[in-house]
């Protein structure tokens, strides 16, 4: 019997090898609910506000295990703080922590961001809202305190995304908020003119707001003098050092019009170099994630757009040319068509040393009738004022780019990607939004939490067999911001050097772990670890072991 049992056991492993859906048994199977507005335009708005399903990973209690914050958006929906029980189960402690009340009649949760606003080394939490966002100070005892107003962040915005990084290199992270609608009260609009004025060149959105961290627990809105004045329909923001000059630059993904690229000018301002860097586009930018997919030492950018039978925009895989220009290689790399794209995240799921990519998609999966002809009837009407919500057809129970299969792109040595989602059972057809990648069980394999709009999420445990060796690094800044956001690490092993950086919340409606994870393939030793801290100082770290997590403190060589 033993051989038979062994065979059965092996078969069971084979059936689940790859990614295992542990959503229910992990205790995180809580559905997201879209906001239902109650105003004269509610029946129209319903089709355009299927948003707010976000997930953000961070070790908020410093116990060495990444936890999860997950948003709901309905008026009485509670947000969730899933504390990691260290055994691949989670307990929702949001109410005890005091951070569950992200929704009410005047505010709807849209996104979330862990960031250390007071530079005490503990991740604080921003709940990004249509309305007034909430800033929760992490008190360090499992409790949080709402400090948004005291911090100067209580302005009404229809915020949909946020990232935090130290753009002025003064040692603390600053806050960048992207707003979708302009700041009209969506819950009681005083005007019907709050929809996009154009499908391709709209400039009546919420734009980008930059709050500079004053270093004393407060922020100052410096948008006007920072050079970031935009009025696009911002859906996502992504930062990284595009030209390796030590200063992080900014990509702004916009719906209904061109994305924007801002170069950091080292003096507290940014320059809009969109035309030179990426060109002007008319697409529907949804997601920004940065990663060096081809291991050439330059960080590239993945942006999702809309690609469907009726609208073939194609995504952008912006290959970094190293001179503040980028070339779209999405067709060449097979990452061009992912349907109606949403959150996408680079991560190395098989530890082969090449960044793979997971992409969510799907707008509204509802009835069998399509909403496309309704939109078509609208757009061919001459001289129609699209900014007037009353001119947009209600979606009702129709679907628009729904029931789309997610993509798990395996990186074929930086040349192209192949979709492995069906093989590993991660090709759900739910309306995906945000992705949080983290090694939740500290086994050296990165897991995925996927937030779905108006539905249950997925927690996929990475059970990939025969993965390569790995190393995970946790960085602590001293002169730099404590969580080391913006730090770059170059690891050389097995004859190649990989670049990763600590990002401050890149990718739509999702935030991955701040730990840096390197797949090492067959390499059993690491030749070199070089950290470039946000201050610009470089540090070599010796004797970093493989298949382990190593903590690195700024200024320490061990």
């Amino acid at each position, binding site marked *: 019997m033993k051989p038979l049992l062994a065979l059965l056991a092996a078969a069971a492993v084979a059936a689940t090898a790859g990614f295992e859906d542990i959503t229910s048994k992990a205790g995180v199977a809580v559905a997201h609910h879209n906001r239902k507005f109650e105003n004269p335009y509610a029946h129209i708005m319903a089709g355009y506000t299927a948003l707010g399903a976000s997930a953000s990973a961070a070790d908020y209690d410093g116990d060495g295990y990444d936890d999860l914050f997950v948003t709901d958006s309905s008026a009485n929906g509670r947000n969730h703080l899933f504390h990691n029980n260290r055994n691949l189960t989670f307990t929702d402690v949001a109410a005890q922590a005091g951070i569950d009340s992200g929704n009410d009649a005047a505010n709807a949760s849209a996104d979330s961001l862990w960031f250390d606003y007071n530079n005490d080394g503990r991740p604080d939490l921003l709940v990004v809202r249509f309305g007034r966002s909430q800033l929760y100070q992490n008190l360090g005892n499992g409790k949080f305190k709402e400090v948004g107003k005291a911090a100067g962040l209580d302005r009404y915005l229809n915020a949909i995304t946020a990232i935090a990084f130290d753009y002025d290199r003064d040692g603390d992270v600053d806050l960048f908020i992207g707003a979708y609608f302009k700041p009209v009260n969506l819950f009681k609009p005083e005007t019907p003119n709050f929809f996009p004025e154009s*499908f*391709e060149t709209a400039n009546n959105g919420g734009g980008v707001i930059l709050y500079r961290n004053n270093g004393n627990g407060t922020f100052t809105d410096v948008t006007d003098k920072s050079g970031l004045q935009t009025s696009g329909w911002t859906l996502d923001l992504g930062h990284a050092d595009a030209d390796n000059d030590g200063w992080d630059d900014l990509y702004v993904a916009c719906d209904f019009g061109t994305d924007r690229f801002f170069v950091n000018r080292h003096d507290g301002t940014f320059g809009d170099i969109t035309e030179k860097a990426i060109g002007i*586009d*008319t*697409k529907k930018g949804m997601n920004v994630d940065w990663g060096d997919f081809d291991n050439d030492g330059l960080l590239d950018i993945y942006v999702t757009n*809309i690609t469907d*039978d*009726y*609208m*073939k*925009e194609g995504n952008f895989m912006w290959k970094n040319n190293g001179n503040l220009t980028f070339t779209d290689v999405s067709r060449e790399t097979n990452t061009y068509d992912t349907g109606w794209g949403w959150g996408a995240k680079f991560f190395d799921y098989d530890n082969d040393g090449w960044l793979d990519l997971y992409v969510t998609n799907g707008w509204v999966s509802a009835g069998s009738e*399509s909403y*496309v*002809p309704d939109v*078509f009837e609208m*757009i*061919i009407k001459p001289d129609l004022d699209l900014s007037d919500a009353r001119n947009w057809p209600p979606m009702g129970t129709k679907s628009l780019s729904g029931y789309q299969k997610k993509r798990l792109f395996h990186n074929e040595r930086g040349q192209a990607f192949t979709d492995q989602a069906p093989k590993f059972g991660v090709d759900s057809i739910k309306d995906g939004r945000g992705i949080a990648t983290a090694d939740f069980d500290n086994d050296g394999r990165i897991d995925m939490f996927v937030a779905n709009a108006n539905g249950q999420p997925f927690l996929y445990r990475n059970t990939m067999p025969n993965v390569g060796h790995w190393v995970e690094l946790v960085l602590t800044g001293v002169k730099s911001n404590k969580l080391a956001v913006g730090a770059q690490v170059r690891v050389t092993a097995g004859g190649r050097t990989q670049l990763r950086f600590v990002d401050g919340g890149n990718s739509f409606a999702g935030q991955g772990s701040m730990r840096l994870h390197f797949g090492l393939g067959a390499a059993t030793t690491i030749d070199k670890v070089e950290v470039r801290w946000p201050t610009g100082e470089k540090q070599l770290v010796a004797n970093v072991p493989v298949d382990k997590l190593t903590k690195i403190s700024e200024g320490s060589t061990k």
Partner: protein
Amino acid sequence: MNRTWIAIAAVAMAVAQGVRPAVVTSQQADLAALEAALSAAPDDLRAANDYRMAIIPVKQYDRSIAFFKKLTADHPTAANAHLNYGFAYVDKIPDAGAITQVILANNALGEFTKSLDLRPSWIALYTRGNSYLFWPRIFNRTKYGIADLTEALKMQKIETKRHYHVRVYVSLGDGLWKYDDLPGAANIWREGLAQFPDSDKLKARLAKQGDELKTVIEADYDPQKRVDTSLQDLWMER
């Protein structure tokens, strides 16, 4: 060489030489000359085609659209002016955003229909029928394309055989394929190949099946690719 050809040659030369202020001035003058020629003969298919072909390299699509708008307003019964007005919209599509492409394509269909209403012709039937095939299935326009192309096929069968008649076999088969009538499509492609044994497009379609066939066909209906809207086949002898 008539005035039209001189103007086209001048524009082509200007494009080849790169854009310089003097050249730009020259281009504008040459386009104006083509417009003047067309205004004097609004139903002249060849003159309209020559004008559009001069517009494409310099990407002055809005100028062309505005010109044909006025031309058709001034000469509402000029069927070929409406046909080329439709093509002027089509010419802009590859350089437009995804939503604008839909608007342009719809405007083009409107002008093709006006042309057909004024004078049912093989070229107008083929043009409108083929245009319908670019629309995603969700819009249910394929059946109209099949109807137009079937009429065009009937028309060409009672005319003298022309080398460009092969286009209807290709497009009608594509329409039937898109309408999920693969046997019907194959029959039309085979019939076409019997008439035009050198047609690479027909050979390619008949040689492929399944996803490979889909790839071959869809490559011809990609809105990002420029459609060859030149009508010179109509007067070029082979």
